[in-house]
């Protein structure tokens, strides 16, 4: 049967830790710090808007680009929040989460053999989706540079076949983020080589120590940037699957072409709810952010105290401590911790080979769960 499967799909490596995940899902009474989504449910005003739209009979297709109301809402939101100016007519596309946006932009840009630079550890899909689009991912190891891409390493990774870079900040899985000055330096190189920056900023609203700077907001960067964002993290709407892509008109037009043939449009209920989130969800976002920030302080303090070295993440809801002193590999550490103490974390290797020696801990869990889980990790470390 294997001969029926395309060579390209066969060449994609399934995630090496699938077996570990199945183990977690099969176990009971586990405290999971392995979850990549908020523990809050979508704010009630937003859920209510979705229900109301169903009652009103909004059950049809929408325009391929997405409801105009939502695109206009995004235009205003991006303008007032970040000073970004994207036209709701032809520079914004509503996508099925950032995941679809990423797939669309890669398929729109890549000719066979084009190279895409991906700083690692990174979100799991960047590499495989690049390959599926016919591109060649060029991974840059950032573990020695505080999990951030340095201008030197970027410069070194670029050659004639380089088409663009996938930048993600705050970073899943490390929680690191870039300050404006650091972004400026990266931008200069990206513009000099005329690359496209695919900027995944889905955690942007969850930045704690400084103001988040969107990449297209840097002077001169907009024409070389495709800005990807979504409602999942800012408004706790993961299951609604609403994201958006903003960029130069011709790139968005290309993306819309693929989107119209493969997806048609994002479900209307989700779009209606998202439009409401832009209007009345701000307060909930601020509350969630304050709560995450407290948990972040608590978790990083505790991890460092028990010797799991961890820099303070500046955004998202992840900590990425080193577990090297345990003498175990990331996968062994995670498996043993699960079996012995029933705490689930994600091995760093899920996010690239250079994630070896680290684990990802998500603090999108209640304070009670976090306290208990950290107690168990302490016990686990003490037992060996």
């Amino acid at each position, binding site marked *: 049967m294997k001969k029926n499967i395309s060579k390209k799909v066969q060449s994609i490596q399934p995630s090496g830790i699938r077996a570990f*995940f199945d183990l*977690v*899902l099969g176990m009971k009474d*586990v405290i*999971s710090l*392995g*979850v*990549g*989504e908020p*523990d809050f449910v979508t704010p009630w005003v937003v859920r209510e808007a979705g229900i109301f739209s169903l009652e009103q009979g909004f059950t049809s297709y929408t325009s391929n680009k997405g409801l105009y109301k939502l695109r206009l809402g995004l235009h205003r939101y991006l303008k007032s929040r970040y000073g970004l100016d994207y036209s709701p007519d032809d520079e914004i596309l509503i996508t099925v989460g950032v995941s679809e946006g990423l797939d669309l932009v890669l398929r729109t840009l890549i000719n066979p053999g084009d190279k895409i630079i991906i700083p690692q550890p990174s*979100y*799991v*899909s960047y590499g495989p989706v690049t390959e599926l689009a016919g591109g060649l991912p060029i991974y840059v190891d950032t573990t020695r540079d505080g999990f951030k891409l340095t201008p030197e390493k970027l410069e070194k990774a670029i050659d004639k076949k380089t088409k663009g870079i996938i930048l993600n900040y705050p970073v*899943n899985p490390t929680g690191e983020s870039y300050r404006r000055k650091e972004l400026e330096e990266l931008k200069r190189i990206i513009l000099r080589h005329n690359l496209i920056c695919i900027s995944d900023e889905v955690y942007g609203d969850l930045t704690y120590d400084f103001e988040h700077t969107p990449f297209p907001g840097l002077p001169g960067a907009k024409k070389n940037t495709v800005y990807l964002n979504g409602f999942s993290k800012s408004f706790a709407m993961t299951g609604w699957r609403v994201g958006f892509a903003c960029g130069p008109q011709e790139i968005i037009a290309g993306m819309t072409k693929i989107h119209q043939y493969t997806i048609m449009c994002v479900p209307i209920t989700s779009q209606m709810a998202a439009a409401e989130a832009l209007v009345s969800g701000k307060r909930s976002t601020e509350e969630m952010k*304050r709560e995450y920030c*407290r*948990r972040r*302080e*608590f978790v990083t*303090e*505790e991890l460092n105290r028990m010797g799991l070295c961890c820099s303070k993440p500046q955004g998202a809801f992840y900590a990425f401590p080193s577990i090297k002193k345990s003498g175990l590999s990331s996968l062994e550490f995670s498996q043993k911790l699960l079996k012995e103490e029933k705490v*689930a974390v*994600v091995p760093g290797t*899920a996010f690239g080979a250079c994630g070896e020696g680290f684990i990802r801990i998500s603090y999108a869990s209640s*304070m009670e769960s976090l*306290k208990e889980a950290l107690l168990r990790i302490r016990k686990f470390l003490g037992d060996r």
Partner: protein
Amino acid sequence: MEEILEILEKDGRVAPEEIAKMLRKKPQEVKSAIRKYEKEGVILKYKAVINKDLVRSEDSSVRALIEVSIVPQKDAGFDRIAERIYSFPEVSSCYLISGTYDLLVIVEGRNIHTVSSFVAEKLSCLENVRGTTTHFLLKKYKEDGVILKHREENKRIAISY
């Protein structure tokens, strides 16, 4: 609102040491801030929120909202008569409000009879009380921001990226 208060308002049992970790402060700082709040009466007391529907005992209580119209007193306005009302231990809350009546008084009693006799024998006969309307509570859904329902299990899948 001060963040310490925001944390304690959600969970009064969080230890000062933990609050210190969450806010990157010294435990001593948090302790003295809390002591100051207590002294100034910003923090009045700490208590458990109990879902009384689940407590099956002799002491189960009924609650009534009573609209009270009063004649304000010279010099003291509503305050003096309010004080006479809220001093009764049966009164759990008392508010002066705008609208068609003056005081909203919440009364708790063991059963309908105790509440009725409180209204008939204590409240209505007070000088300056012009009239009362009593509403008995049938079911509580949400109180002080807490939904009175057992928390459901987390619906998220255990591992995701």
